[in-house]
């Protein structure tokens, strides 16, 4: 426990004071929950640096109206938002759950909550209790021992706060002059992990010539400091009331109680980092990192992005090693100026096509350390190798995940009726197996003897047999009896849905420019022939090829 507290106290405090306070006053439990004492000692170190935000003076009504926050907080919206929240979402220190509040929807509760939210907006202050969180260190890499260093802190905050954050999210996202970079795909509509993966695959197939460089920030969300974030937000001309709310919710008098092996610690202070588990954190991180993206994009080649981001997962694609090194130097300077650090062990340099055939190129340096060369790299849960997506490894990865689920399910599903197994199959097993399926199916259309496809078929059939019994040896028939689509039809269905997603993607998505350059369906009514040797992207150019793959290609 002490080691873990020390680790997280260092991580969450920019000038770490790792003293471990003695256990707090006694706690009591209600419905599986721990309650901490009402008010922990207040922090002053962080807030004292920002006197303007420390003021408790209410904002003028005109500022409040200009912020747009009032328009987003009204009773019906509270009800809708509460209906949208997952009923299994964990509660914070107050022990109030979504199910509890849903039962109060038809009472005067939404009205009271609405009044409180307005009162808090008018004063520009949020309750101190909201800044207490419970931190669960989740194991990051299950192949390694579960230690404090090999864990990711997930923060549970109270539900009133989560609801409030969800209501103000659209304003926090757009307030000021916020030109989101087109290469940022994380937490944005019109983007997805698969559009990023397909773009990267196309870039590798286009054979840039130099290694593809993957980067990892060490504890990215937890290293964001207020002074750096404030500077970025002010540069983006964010509304002052929104800025004050962000400071109050994320950095003022923050405390956390760590749960280690089921035991809670006393409340500890924290003064930096965005809470992983708070609805605002991803958007704030996007705003924080946007200046880095903008600077990398300015050096891009025509129509090719020089970097792709998905939140803090990013990759550099460059035609020459010198150019790549200059981009890295730029990123290193940005990281130094913003209090971020790279996790060099998780960065990777992937040699592709011609780069893989030439003698070992000089190492590319990150903070004077060579970026390690890798033969494969998992980017956004998709395996990449020297020729693009490594479909065999990708299918193995997915199948192993499903195999682990299936193994565990076999242990405790003996008493479950088939309907429950069917529900679990549809909600847990198939979504796991179907991640990146449109791309795998696109590859299958290119190569009918794809080993990846065979592997996935086998696991799909195992899932069906778990549900329908080992005697169900005809998956096609079992699927029809269960109302499921057979494997190939399901893949075709998902491919078509992915095509529709491409049609509606953001105009700044780099994949849009790449597809437009190749005269895909929205740009031409002519059907384009898709020879087998063409890159994967061509499987998504032509709606006829997507919807009716069995028809012969026309020249």
């Amino acid at each position: 426990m002490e080691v873990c507290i020390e680790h997280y106290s260092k991580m969450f405090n920019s000038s770490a004071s790792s003293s471990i306070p003695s256990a707090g006053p006694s706690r009591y439990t209600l419905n599986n929950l721990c309650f901490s004492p009402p008010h922990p000692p207040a922090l002053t170190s962080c807030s004292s640096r920002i006197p303007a935000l420390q003021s408790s003076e209410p904002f003028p009504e005109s500022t409040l109206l200009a912020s747009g926050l009032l328009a987003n907080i009204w009773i019906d919206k509270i009800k809708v938002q509460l209906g949208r929240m997952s009923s299994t979402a964990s509660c914070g220190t107050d022990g109030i759950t979504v199910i509890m509040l849903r039962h109060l929807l038809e009472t005067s509760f939404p009205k009271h909550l609405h009044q409180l939210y307005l009162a808090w907006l008018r004063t520009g202050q949020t309750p101190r209790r909201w800044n207490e969180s419970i931190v669960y260190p989740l194991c990051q890499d299950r192949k390694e021992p579960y230690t404090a260093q090999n864990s990711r802190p997930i923060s549970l905050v109270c539900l009133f706060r989560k609801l409030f954050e969800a209501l103000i999210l659209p304003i926090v996202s757009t307030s000021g002059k916020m030109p989101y970079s087109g290469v940022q795909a994380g937490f944005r509509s019109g983007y997805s992990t698969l559009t990023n993966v397909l773009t990267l695959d196309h870039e590798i197939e286009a054979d840039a010539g130099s290694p593809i460089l993957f980067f990892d920030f060490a504890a990215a969300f937890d290293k964001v400091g207020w002074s750096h974030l404030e500077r970025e937000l002010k540069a983006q001309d964010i509304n002052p009331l929104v800025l004050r709310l962000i400071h109050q919710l994320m950095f003022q008098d923050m405390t956390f109680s760590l749960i280690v092996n089921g035991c809670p610690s006393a409340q500890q202070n924290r003064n930096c980092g965005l809470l992983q588990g708070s609805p605002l954190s991803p958007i704030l991180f996007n705003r924080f990192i946007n200046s880095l993206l903008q600077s990398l994009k300015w050096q891009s080649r025509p129509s090719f992005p020089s970097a792709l981001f998905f939140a803090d997962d990013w990759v550099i694609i460059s035609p020459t090693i010198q150019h790549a090194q200059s981009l890295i130097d730029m990123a290193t300077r940005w990281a130094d100026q913003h209090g971020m650090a790279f996790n060099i062990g998780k960065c990777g340099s992937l040699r592709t096509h011609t780069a893989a055939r030439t003698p070992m190129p000089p190492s590319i340096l990150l903070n004077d350390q060579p970026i390690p060369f890798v033969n494969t790299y998992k980017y956004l849960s998709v395996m990449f190798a020297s020729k693009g997506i490594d479909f065999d490894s990708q299918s193995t990865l997915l199948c192993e995940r499903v195999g682990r689920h299936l193994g565990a399910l076999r242990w405790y599903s003996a008493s479950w009726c088939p309907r429950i197994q069917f529900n679990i199959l549809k909600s847990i097993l198939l979504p796991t197996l179907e991640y990146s399926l449109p791309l795998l199916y696109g590859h299958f259309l290119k190569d009918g003897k794809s080993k990846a496809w065979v592997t996935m078929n086998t696991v799909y059939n195992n899932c069906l047999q778990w549900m329908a019994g080992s005697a169900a040896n005809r998956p096609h028939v079992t699927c029809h009896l269960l109302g499921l689509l057979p494997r190939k039809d399901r893949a075709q269905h998902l491919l078509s849905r992915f095509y529709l997603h491409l049609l509606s993607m953001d105009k700044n998505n780099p994949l849009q420019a790449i597809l437009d350059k190749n005269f895909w369906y929205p740009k031409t009514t002519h059907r384009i022939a898709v020879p087998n040797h063409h890159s994967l992207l061509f499987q998504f150019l032509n709606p006829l090829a997507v919807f009716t793959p069995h028809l012969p290609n026309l020249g």
Partner: protein
Amino acid sequence: MDTLFPSFKGSERFDVNMLNSILCAAVQAIVERTLGIYKLEESRKKEDKAAKQLLAELDMSASIQLLKPAQQASVVAQQMVSSTG
């Protein structure tokens, strides 16, 4: 709800922490009155009645609720260790 949490009047002076505590306490009081209080460790030792009830229900959320305790049990079994140990 109105009894436990009298309506707030905009003209009154208020403290945000106090208002939050009052509303939380009101919700907690309603929940305690309706559902009661139980001690987690003792409840875990008792027979799981909820699982039997969930087994009879066929909707998706009941199935997930049935699965979650089993998943949590496997996660809890994995104890964090000291890196030095």
